[in-house]
């Protein structure tokens, strides 16, 4: 491990890479603050840039920096104007915004920044410990286990979708997998489901799809409902003074940060759970275990109420890198986009990554520390200035968001048809969102599709048929686990409902 850290340090501490971290964090914070552009959209926009860079380590360092910056920017806007740019910072606004309203915006931002820093750093240490362990286990896996593992990952994402949503999430996953089969895959050398359209020969672009699934619906929502974009009043920007917190406050949030960093990390490792659940759960847990008189303060501007979700969500972001880097399985929409970027850069994430290209793995980890440090010492003091972007009037902001969405899809492919596909899918995605269909599973399915089919085919070829399912116990075990994951929540919901109606009296 020590050797790995040295490799990572040597790779990360070049002038270019440090500039990438700083630049990425700044860009991320800047854009992450805007309503309608979450980390996923920002990373998708930055991918063409990262691919132009060429060197996978540098590109990944840039993207990771952008990711942290965006999460940080999201919490800033939820504190300052109660407009969380991302779902994972909604919990931050519960206490952050009241504190900012009472004139202590500076303190709220500092607590958020310190908690994010601690959560991210503790997460990075845990990642450093657990990822190599997991990867060494994963090296024993064959293609059939990989196939089964991806099935588990996809079912877990659906299982965590919430009650009443499992079937929808599964359908979206299947739709993503189906969309991934369009075009000429590497496997068979023949075009499939292109309907004779030349532009579909190479399949749908994943950046286009990411933009269509997340950035465009969010922008359309902003247009539809002006109350969603609370920008343009410009009165909050100037009030950020006094970024200091005192010793007593630091003492009171320290244990919260410690607990929530650990909890957040492990939630983040689970596929499908991610930063949003970690932050809400972190907030709820800390409120419940706080002394009575402090409990009253939650929701009215308690600094613990900022520290808990912030450290949890940053630790979870780091945790979500564990399955990505060790198994090549993304647990969230954001890591799915990062996986897409890695594939575009000719890096195949998985347990071999740590053996074949350790510099990439360790450079990313070291860049996480650097990124967190940059956010704390560089971005925090700059926040009063960066926050001015929140004063940009909506009439100018929305055309720009739409334009960046278009650019993101266009630059990667240089094909105007891609833009029409983007708008078409964007409209579909908006309608899906109207009806409460979760969109992240679709994108994850789409990105995992080729990998899933690849491993499935390889296993089929090795065992000359479906025999691999029952002749490899680990595969069978994983597949059964996947079925249990999907069936269990709906079974429990059914039983709970039945019990509520007074029908079931079994147990």
């Amino acid at each position, binding site marked *: 491990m020590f050797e790995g850290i040295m490799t990572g340090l040597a790779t990360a501490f070049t002038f270019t890479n440090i500039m990438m971290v700083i630049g990425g964090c700044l860009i991320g914070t800047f854009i992450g603050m805007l309503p309608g552009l979450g980390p996923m959209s920002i990373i998708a926009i930055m991918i063409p840039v990262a691919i132009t860079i060429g060197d996978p380590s540098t590109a990944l360092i840039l993207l990771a920096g952008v990711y942290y910056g965006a999460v940080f920017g999201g919490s800033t806007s939820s504190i300052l104007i109660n407009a969380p740019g991302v779902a994972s910072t909604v919990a931050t606004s519960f206490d952050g915004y009241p504190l900012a309203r009472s004139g202590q915006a500076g303190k709220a931002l500092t607590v958020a920044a310190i908690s994010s820093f601690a959560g991210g750093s503790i997460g990075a240490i845990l990642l450093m410990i657990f990822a190599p362990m997991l990867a060494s286990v994963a090296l024993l896996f064959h293609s059939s286990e990989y196939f089964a593992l991806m099935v588990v990952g996809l079912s877990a994402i659906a299982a965590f979708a919430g009650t*009443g949503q499992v*079937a929808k999430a*599964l359908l979206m996953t299947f739709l993503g997998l189906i969309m991934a089969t369009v075009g000429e895959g590497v496997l068979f050398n023949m075009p*499939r489901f292109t309907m004779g359209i030349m532009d579909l020969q190479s399949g749908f672009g994943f950046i286009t799809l990411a933009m269509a699934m997340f950035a465009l619906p969010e922008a359309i929502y902003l*247009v*539809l409902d002006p109350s969603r974009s609370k920008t343009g009043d410009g009165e909050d920007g100037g009030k950020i003074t006094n970024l200091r917190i005192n010793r007593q406050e630091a003492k009171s949030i320290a244990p919260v940060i410690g607990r929530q960093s650990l909890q957040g990390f492990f939630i983040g490792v689970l596929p499908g759970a991610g930063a949003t659940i970690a932050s809400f759960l972190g907030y709820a847990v800390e409120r419940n275990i706080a002394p009575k008189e402090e409990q009253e303060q939650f929701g009215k501007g308690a600094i613990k109420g900022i520290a808990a979700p912030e450290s949890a969500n940053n630790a979870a972001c780091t945790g979500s890198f564990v399955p990505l880097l060790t198994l090549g399985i993304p647990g969230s929409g954001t890591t799915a986009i990062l996986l897409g970027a890695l594939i575009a850069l000719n890096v195949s994430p998985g347990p071999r990554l740590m053996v074949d290209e350790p510099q990439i793995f360790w450079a990313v980890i070291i860049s996480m520390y650097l990124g967190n440090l940059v956010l704390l010492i560089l971005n925090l003091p700059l926040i009063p200035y960066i926050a001015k972007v929140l004063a940009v009037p909506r009439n100018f902001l929305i055309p720009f968001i739409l*334009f960046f969405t*278009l650019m993101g899809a266009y630059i990667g492919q240089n094909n105007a048809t891609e833009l029409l596909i983007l708008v078409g899918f964007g409209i579909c995605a908006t309608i899906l969102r109207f*009806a*409460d269909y979760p969109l992240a599973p679709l994108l994850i399915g789409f990105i995992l599709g080729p990998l899933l089919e690849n491993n499935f085919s390889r296993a089929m070829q090795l065992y000359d048929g479906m025999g691999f399912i029952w002749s490899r116990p680990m595969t069978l075990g994983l597949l059964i686990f996947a079925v249990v994951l999907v069936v269990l929540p709906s079974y429990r919901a059914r039983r709970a409902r039945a019990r509520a109606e007074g029908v079931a009296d079994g147990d």
Partner: protein
Amino acid sequence: MALDRWIAFVILLVCMAYGYAAYFTMDSVLPPIMQRSPIWPSSFPKVLAVGAILFSLAIVLGLEKAPEKKDAADINLSRLGDYNVGQALMLLGLMVAYALLLRPLGFLAATFLFLFLGSFILGERRFVLMAVVAAIAAGCVWYLVDAVLGIFLSPLPGFMNSVASGG
């Protein structure tokens, strides 16, 4: 029938077409040598079609009861008329126009028009400011993408480009 079930119904139709293509149209064109392989290009799509049809049916038939909840932050479809639907549709139309005109008009002109008309649709009427912002943004983005990133974006209208490169 609620919107989500209608959507599931549409998806069901799409998946049935997909399944039909996978089961009945793909295998006959397969060269004989590939037919000896245990996995065919249609194998995986066949599995997917079955799964997707089952899950969309489950939603159409309402097998999984969704809990009653209304998120205040979300769009309430029953009052769709209160939202700026017209603006949203016009902006989407503008995006389509941008896609179609990007090549013929060139990046600079198309982007300028997009940003200018975009804020116009949203109700902005400070024309000078709009023009200045759109012009600066179009120029900066073109410079960043083309010169800094090295990704070619044809800046001028189609006919002028050929003149420029010819001369």
